[in-house]
């Protein structure tokens, strides 16, 4: 499989996504904001459709759309302070509504590959762009790790400790938007949020500390991508779906392992 150039590139990109998506997802899940992934991926779809319609680079327009949407979510969250989750539904509706109109306008035949992901030819320029974005995302997470831990654990106390929680939240929203944009090529917009959530779900079942939870999350993420890509190549299956089902299989194995280990304490 690795004798093909496109598979090597897909694998490199896949491993990057396998690291980036669960790392970002880890903080989202623990802040009970995992739905943001779904919301922004729908917006990314409208961004990609806009790109195809205007003959622009779809990933680039998807990045612009998702970053604007993520800032919109933060703004709406303040507007609907007591119904903060409404902000997600509003942006999700806007994203899917816009996407369906843009797709219907024509010249968007390739949009299906962005919906479910594919082992499409990834150019070396794309590899470079995605590597830079991945390094940016992971670098920011490492740089802000201790601050984000505090905000994730108790945002009010973090604010009172003098952390600029608003600024960090906006930074983080942009990271989520970038993660979705770079993941959509391989995993597909409909399945990105699964890759942000499933490895994390498995990791918090076995993690002994916050740090180990993050490490397990990206380990499970990378393993899911490698298994998923390999199976999808040999069995000719949809790439995104195979990756996500691999992540699900890992989660089920962890759940089974847990119930064998301590059958009496499972509830």
């Amino acid at each position, binding site marked *: 499989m690795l004798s093909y150039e496109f598979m090597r590139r897909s694998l490199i990109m896949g491993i990057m996504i396998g690291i980036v998506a669960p790392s970002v997802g880890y903080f989202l899940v*623990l802040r009970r904001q995992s739905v943001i992934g779904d919301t922004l991926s729908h917006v990314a779809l409208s961004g990609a459709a806009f790109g195809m319609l205007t003959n622009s680079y779809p990933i680039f327009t998807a990045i612009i759309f998702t970053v604007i949407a993520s800032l919109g979510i933060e703004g709406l969250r303040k507007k609907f302070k*007591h119904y903060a989750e409404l902000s997600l539904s509003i942006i999700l509706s806007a994203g899917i509504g816009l996407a369906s109109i843009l797709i219907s306008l024509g010249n968007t035949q390739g949009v299906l590959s962005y919906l479910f992901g594919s082992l499409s030819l990834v150019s070396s320029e794309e590899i470079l762009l995605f590597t830079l974005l991945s390094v940016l995302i992971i670098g920011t997470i*490492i*740089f802000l*790790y*201790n*601050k984000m*831990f*505090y905000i994730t*654990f*108790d*945002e*009010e*106390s*973090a*604010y*009172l*400790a*003098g*952390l600029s929680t608003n600024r960090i939240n906006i930074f983080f929203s942009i990271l989520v938007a970038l993660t979705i944009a770079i993941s959509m090529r391989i995993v597909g917009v409909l399945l990105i949020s699964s890759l942000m959530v499933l490895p994390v779900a498995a*990791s*918090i*079942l076995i*993690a*002994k*500390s*916050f*740090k*180990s*939870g993050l490490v397990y999350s990206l380990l499970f993420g990378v393993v899911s991508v490698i298994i998923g890509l390999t199976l999808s190549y040999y069995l000719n299956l949809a790439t995104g779906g195979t990756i996500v089902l691999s992540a699900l299989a890992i989660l089920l194995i962890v759940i089974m392992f847990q119930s064998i280990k301590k059958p009496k304490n499972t509830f």
Partner: protein
Amino acid sequence: MENVSFSYGKAPTLSKVNLHVDRGDFVGIVGPNGSAKTTLLKLMVGLLKPDEGSIKLFGQSIDDFRDYQRIGYISQNVREFNIMFPATVEEVVGAEINARRSIFSRTKEEDKDRIYEVLQRVEMIDYKKQKVGSLSGGQKQRIFIARALINNPEILFMDEPLVGVDLDSQNKFYSLLDRLKEDYNITIVMVSHDIGVISEKVNRLFCLSNGRVYDHDLTKDIHGANILEDLYGKNVRLLFHKH
């Protein structure tokens, strides 16, 4: 706090509130559900901004206050702490000092010592590597006090810290507060729904009702005067038991 008014919508939640806390006070904030106890506490620490009036902490306007290390705050969120949240006691207690550092710099020895020192103070040092979610309600409460004490604060704000904590742990919790007051003369402001217990522990009580605050210097007042009626309505009877 001078002439402070605050509202979430049109109806005022708190109106023209005047109160002050002296150094060394142990203040209880009580009142029925929805009487804005948490709102009052959040205004005091600056998490909410008043519509009118002024709030000062250590004589400094809350808008300009940046001396966060002088206050410790335990929010209600802590009570709803998700037991699956993967964090150790050490990580939670060290959250604040670690937040000032990047992941690359190693935890300084003095910071580690500080974490262990506050854990010892709340008698939880043996649990430092354990997951917070695996602890009992009372133990968790001690961990959150340890976290709030990490900077040696002069004043500790707590929002209903004893909900879901059994009686034995409640007694231990109050003895811990007594020790903190004795050893460090720490000022404590604590929201509670349990007017009976807290009125025996504090030296001042702020009672909230219909947006007003009744300030009692002598906790004995609460049993004698008509305050309970004002607070909870007409159908309140006081029953004294001797066990």
